[in-house]
């Protein structure tokens, strides 16, 4: 309590100092750190709340810790078990822990109740090829007490694609406590996070990769194929709930939604989370089951992101029998990469983190933090729902009619992604969606928007920057992305002059790549060099967001030929910048928004000297540039979202 009080004072002071600035998120939700004793690598793989109100955490190094008094200033840590193989999930039921090791779902018991585990029972195991990417997650326990696990696909470096080199990689499995296994669905690539909503339906979060243009959240039902074909290898197994063959999936130019129209097993995601804007590596899913004790978002899903150390918020609805919905920002600024979120018995959200091997915006290696709702309702878009002719936005507090009644207060555009073997996708088919009419509800909590140019299968960006609450507060977050798989039937609102307005919808210019981009990425040796190069250098990557070269030296004005080899399993570039501007350029890349990938995440700036394109995994590019004439240390950075803080090197320019 004392800590809370202290935090409030700090928040108030900060608020006073920041008069006139935008909303202070801390007013509504504060992030408090659970102190971890020196010497414990609290790289959280899983969290569980225990009946006595304490917390259990399993670490990537294979320990289970019991943490009591976690909300206090000096929590007590006790090691309950150790020796597990990279467990990435934890649950507690019937007096036992359940955790998923690389190759096994394990029940851990303390038979003599001395506070130390003494029985490690296999519930179910599966083969492994030994590939590093074969992470195994869970379990999440459903209402009936069955255990759900997800199995990461293997990563094939040579062929730059996910594989299923051992049975059930790329699948969701349901396993009874007695060890009966039922394969549920496949098409998963990197399913680190999954959870049930209030209705008991399962959702999982996917990360960008091959066949995954951007992060996304899918509803999982038996027999689903959720997009990445690696796991289809096992559909001929007698217990496979689907029979789709991997040969049926090829890069055709169709979007995933379009292909799903002719391949019934292929299920489009309920939510797309635009890469770089709404995370770069979605992780856990936590449903708000607190019925108002955690703020106004009861029943919605919170979705973590490892790379951007933040949490997003998802509101779903069912249209024509299928889930779809909207994703909003929720809270950022966590200390490390978020992998796990659970509810503490005290009604706070407990967030478990690690960034080993995958850098995160939060710079700490690991940690546990709590999200505490301070009891005040933030002014937010609570939800967006599809309507036959547009959207309806529900706010958490009444809006100011002067700011919310005009169509100009809403900017909407639609776009989607490629469905392809290549890693990720740029934003494609971007078109604006003019708002033709706005109808405000009597209680001023809802606005009904009549929107032109809505397209099924498209993500719709909804911006509401100008809107204020009845108390003249701006929105805490003014953006949401609605994935419109299906437009509902029903009554439409009559709009005068709608034809005129409809005509105003337009394609967003495709040439978002500025000319200056080409000037700074020279892939053919300039004629003026007369086939002469002063300095040839090769830079590669190392796993864990690193270049294989920390520094190299050139002479001022040298003609440099640089080969960049991306041998990692993610997208990377190299951007040479002026001394001291790496943060400006790295952050600038994050603010490129939807067009970021098309611009190879290189912001337009005089401080960018030269750069490569954003390279696919296992590919390379040669660029030519002249070293600066002024001596100094010129950083080179990867500007793929979330990478620049750690993926850096120095070009030393000497006279």
């Amino acid at each position: 309590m004392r800590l809370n009080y202290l935090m409030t004072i700090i928040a108030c002071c900060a608020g006073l100092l920041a008069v006139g600035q935008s909303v202070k998120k801390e007013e509504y939700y504060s992030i408090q750190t659970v102190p971890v004793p020196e010497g414990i690598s609290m790289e959280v793989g899983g969290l569980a709340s225990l009946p006595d109100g304490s917390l259990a955490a399993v670490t990537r190094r294979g320990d289970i810790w019991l943490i009591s008094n976690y909300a206090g200033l000096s929590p007590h840590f006790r090691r309950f078990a150790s020796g597990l193989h990279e467990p990435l999930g934890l649950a507690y039921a019937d007096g036992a822990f359940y955790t998923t090791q690389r190759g096994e779902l394990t029940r851990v018991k303390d038979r003599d109740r001395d506070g130390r585990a003494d029985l490690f029972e296999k519930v179910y195991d599966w083969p492994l090829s030994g590939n590093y990417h074969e992470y195994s997650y869970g379990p999440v326990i459903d209402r009936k007490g069955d255990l759900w696990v997800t199995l990461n696909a293997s990563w094939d470096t040579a062929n730059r694609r996910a594989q299923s080199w051992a049975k059930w990689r790329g699948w969701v499995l349901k396993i009874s406590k007695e060890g009966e296994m039922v394969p549920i669905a496949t098409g998963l690539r990197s399913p680190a996070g999954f959870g049930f909503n209030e209705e008991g339906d399962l959702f999982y979060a996917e990360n960008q990769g091959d066949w995954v243009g951007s992060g996304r959240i899918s509803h999982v039902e038996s027999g689903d194929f959720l997009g990445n074909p690696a796991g289809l290898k096992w559909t001929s197994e007698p217990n496979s709930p689907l029979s789709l063959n991997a040969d049926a999936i090829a890069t055709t130019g169709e979007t995933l939604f379009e292909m799903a129209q002719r391949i019934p097993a292929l299920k489009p995601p309920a939510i797309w989370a635009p890469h770089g804007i709404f995370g770069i590596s979605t992780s856990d899913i936590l449903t708000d089951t607190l019925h108002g004790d955690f703020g106004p978002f009861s029943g919605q899903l919170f979705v973590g992101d490892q790379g951007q150390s933040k949490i997003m918020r998802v509101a779903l609805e069912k249209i024509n029998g299928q889930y779809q919905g909207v994703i909003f920002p929720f809270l950022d600024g966590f200390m490390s990469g978020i992998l796990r979120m659970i509810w503490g018995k005290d009604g706070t959200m407990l967030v478990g983190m690690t960034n080993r091997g995958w850098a995160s915006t939060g710079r700490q290696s690991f940690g546990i933090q709590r999200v505490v709702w301070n009891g005040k309702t933030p002014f937010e878009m609570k939800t967006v729902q599809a309507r036959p002719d547009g959207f309806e936005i529900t706010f958490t507090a009444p809006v100011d009619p002067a700011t919310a009644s005009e169509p100009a207060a809403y900017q909407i555009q639609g776009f989607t992604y490629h469905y392809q073997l290549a890693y990720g996708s740029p934003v494609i088919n971007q078109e604006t969606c003019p708002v033709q009419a706005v109808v405000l509800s009597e209680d001023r909590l809802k606005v009904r928007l009549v929107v032109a140019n809505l397209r099924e299968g498209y993500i719709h960006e909804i911006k509401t920057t100008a809107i204020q609450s009845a108390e003249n507060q701006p929105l805490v977050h003014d953006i949401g992305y609605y994935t419109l798989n299906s437009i509902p039937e029903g009554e439409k609102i009559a709009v005068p002059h709608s034809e005129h307005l409809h005509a105003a919808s337009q394609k967003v210019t495709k040439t978002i790549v500025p000319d200056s981009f080409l000037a700074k990425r020279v892939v053919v040796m300039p004629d003026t060099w007369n086939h002469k190069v002063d300095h040839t250098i090769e830079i590669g990557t190392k796993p864990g967001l690193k270049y294989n070269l920390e520094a190299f030296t050139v002479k001022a004005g040298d003609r440099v030929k640089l080969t960049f080899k991306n041998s990692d399993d993610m997208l990377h570039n190299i951007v040479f910048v002026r001394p001291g501007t790496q943060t400006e350029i790295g952050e600038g890349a994050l603010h490129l928004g939807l067009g970021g990938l098309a611009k190879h995440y290189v912001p337009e700036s005089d401080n960018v000297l030269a750069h490569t394109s954003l390279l696919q995994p296992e590919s390379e590019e040669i660029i030519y540039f002249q070293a600066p004439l002024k001596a100094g240390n010129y950083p080179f950075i990867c500007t793929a979202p979330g990478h620049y803080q750690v993926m850096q090197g120095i070009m030393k320019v000497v006279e």
Partner: protein
Amino acid sequence: MAAIPVPMVSVCLWMLFLAISQPLQGGVEDPGPPFKNLPFGQNHVTGSWKVAAETFFHPMKASRKKLLKGEGILVYLPKGKSPRDSRKELPLPEAGDLEVSLDFMLSPKAALTLELGNAYTITLTDSRGNPGPQAVTSGTVTTAFSGYEPYSNVGKPPGLWQNVRWVMRRSESGASRLEAVYLNEICIHQELEIPAKGASKGQPVVTVTGGSQPFSLRNFRYRKPESYREPDRGKSKTVYGEIALPVSQEPVLLRSFILYGDIKKTHILSTGYTEQVNMAYNLAKGAPLLMWRGRFLKANNMWDQRGLSQVAEPLGNPLELPDAPSLARLTSEEMVWPDSVTADADYHYKGYALEETGKPEFLYRLGAAEIAETFYPRQAGVALERTFTTGMKIPDLWCRAATGTVRKVAKGLYSINDYQYLIHTEGAVRIRTIDGRDELLLPFTETSLSYTIIY
């Protein structure tokens, strides 16, 4: 596990052993020049020193030893507790920098010292009574100034051939530097330096001194060492940046991948016992795969950055045991041992329990039978006693304790692969040979069965 069947010598219960057949020095990756052998011949024979073609000392019974007439092995059989001729000088024909290698086999409680010039003394002991580096741990080096414990205890028990190897550099002034000492291929000392004052000039001599108990020596050899190569201390000593799992008060367990030869095994549970003996067990087959002395595991390849390989590395020189089920029901004498577990096989891994002491008890089902299996360190860590408990009597159930070349060397004691390790059992055994490979089979006559691996 190269098994060369060799004809049995009828007068002895154990086989003729080719002294050259165990390449203890250098290993296969050794890039250095070949060693020159200094054979032990009749010229060495005095009161307490004999030559023989083969020797064996029973690790548990001091009086039990066997000698086979011939040459190649120098045997110390002391006449009395401190015989006058306990010292033997072994001259090396060349001066200057030298790398010297020597195999030795101890009898119980035996100790011997090797004096290198006047500068260093290496003590080799049956250090079973002294787990952990202590002054009498095998491999301790003493100089005029101080004593140096080995980085870790990697000595093998009596009755097995061991190897000691060292690299000595000498300057013009007579100063000498002991660059590295290896015991059983693990670096146990590095960079011990003696100024000129205490060192001797001229032709180098290794002086062997015995005590009250017998031992034997073979494969005395030397070569000019290569230019300095950094020894791999990592297996015996904490090195910078290492993430090792220390074992102190209680056993430490870790599930991981493990390399078995070149093959990555994926369902492995390793245990580091407090007696400095370690074992990696394949849960997928119910088979102990590796056993090693010294430190436990290094986890850098699991816990540094992404941990791409997920392979834990044994910090010692592991003995590879067969990656095959240990138990099977043999319904006929000819029935071939099942080497793998298939999905529909009898073996079903269930889990493991931790005893009060923290030692794991492996639990599995074999057909309808519930099996529990334990490993207890014995003889201060040079041995692991493996015990199966079946709960009920199972007809035709056998345990395959070893494969390769199997020879009985004493009552209840079997040499596997020419003294690579020993198996001890009190119970009945059957040795059979299939396709040139011997199998040491133990029948289940009761609801439990034990045998001991000595390494």
